């Protein structure tokens, strides 16, 4: 058995270069066949998702926009340790730490907090490594359907704390839900 005829998958096809017959060279049969194929598609089910009305269903492991979490008392979890920035393969995260003042105990949980926390959304690849690296459960990738809203300026794609930190009302609601349970 020569190497040319071995087919391990069983799907091997030998290319034939035989001349076309007269009927084949007329192409009319081939054209009619093609027309039948295309007209079948006329009656097929359309695959379009009507975007603004319908949104494509996301997979269960989908990761959306980031959120910096607060605890039940509304304090920010982040302690600006920088592990998320370290784990980020795209170098998207930067932050600047600051020390908590005595009168800010209701704002930040730890003694150190992130004064500036920025994620460059043009670089972020939504891999979720920051979420896994965080020891304080501070950064989460939500299931938000909006990944990054469109914008005219590149600067607007750098998300600061104003866009990332969980709204206070949401933290309150979460706390209430937890108490109710």
């Amino acid at each position, binding site marked *: 058995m020569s190497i040319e005829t071995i087919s391990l998958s069983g799907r091997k096809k030998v290319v034939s270069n035989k001349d076309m017959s007269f009927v084949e060279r007329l192409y009319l049969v081939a*054209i009619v066949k093609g027309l039948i194929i295309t007209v079948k598609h006329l009656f097929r089910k*359309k695959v*379009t998702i*009507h975007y603004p009305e319908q949104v494509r269903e996301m997979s269960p492991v989908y990761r959306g926009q980031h959120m910096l979490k607060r605890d039940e008392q509304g304090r920010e979890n982040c302690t600006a340790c920088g592990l998320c920035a370290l784990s980020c393969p795209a170098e998207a995260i930067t932050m600047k730490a600051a020390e908590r003042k005595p009168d800010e105990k209701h704002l930040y949980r730890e003694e150190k907090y992130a004064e500036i926390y920025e994620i460059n959304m043009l670089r972020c690849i939504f891999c979720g490594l920051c979420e896994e690296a965080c020891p304080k459960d501070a950064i989460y990738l939500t299931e938000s359907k909006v990944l990054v809203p469109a914008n005219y300026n590149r600067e607007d794609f750098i998300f600061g704390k104003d866009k990332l930190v969980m709204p206070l009302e949401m933290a309150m609601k979460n706390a209430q839900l937890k108490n109710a349970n």
Partner: protein
Amino acid sequence: MESAFIIEKSVVIVVVFAVTMIMAMYSTWAERKVAAFLQDRVGPNRAGWGGLLQPLADGMKLFSKEEFFPNTPNKFLFVVGPAIAMSTALMTSAVIPWGDRLHLFGRDIILQATDVNIALLYIFGVLSVGVYGIMIGGWASNNKFSLMGAIRAASQMVSYEVAMGLSMIALLMMTGTMSLKEISLQQQGMNWNVFYQPLSFLIFLICSFAETNRTPFDLAECENELIGGYHTEYSSMKMGFYLFAEYASMFISSTIISVLFFGGYNYPGMQWMVENVGVNAANLLGIAALFVKICFFIFFYMWVRWTIPRFRYDQLMHLGWRILIPLSIVNIMITGIVILRHDIAAYLGF
């Protein structure tokens, strides 16, 4: 000439003009819908129900776009180009019989703008003027590539006109008349010419694809081979006119195919309808039958567009000169032999 006749003819002309325009307008919509459906998409659905107002929106967009004139030596010709393309496409509708006759206000109204006895010759004459629209447009653009696109389109149209004319001759030998009215009348019942002249029909169909610059012969305006073809420098409604002319001529050529080969306004049982239901009802149904045939061919144009890939230029010329023209000459000879045999048989009394 009596005034009633003038009024009658002007009404017919205005209606035919309006119908041609509306059909061309909605062909653009249908094209997009058919294209979408053949590709498992939905197509335009924002403007109006099912996107039915899309042609109006397109028109509004084209009218409000900036008018751009290249630094051309002759601005007049630049404007005349699309106008010629458009008017030749519309002029052909004058000789087409849309139906037999309607009996209204005690008069017989012939549903045809004018019944010239050389209608076919007239159609070929007008069609060949259409080449000027493309050629002038390409030349006046003052752009080498547009000119090359125009020359390519012109040579394509001229070449296929030869084969088209020759394929018609076989039909003319059989019908013995050039009047579209009489050709329609001869096809009463199911005596459609396509059954007697299938080869002639095939050649005519292929040639009308080339004449209307539709895929697979749309080398005139292909983007990837010669930038935009002859209308690279055109913008706003002047560009729209060229595109619109394509759809208008598509409608007209579908009509001519239906009239010449598929019995025009005739449908099986028309004679029975005239005798039992009345002339008006029978002819209204006839107009509807004609439009069904036309719509099928317009759909066929679109259907083919999404099936067959574009021809290469040398393939196009090869098909035109070395296949279609000899084939139509052979067809003429066969028709001649058949007619001769028939005549001799009649003469000898068989």
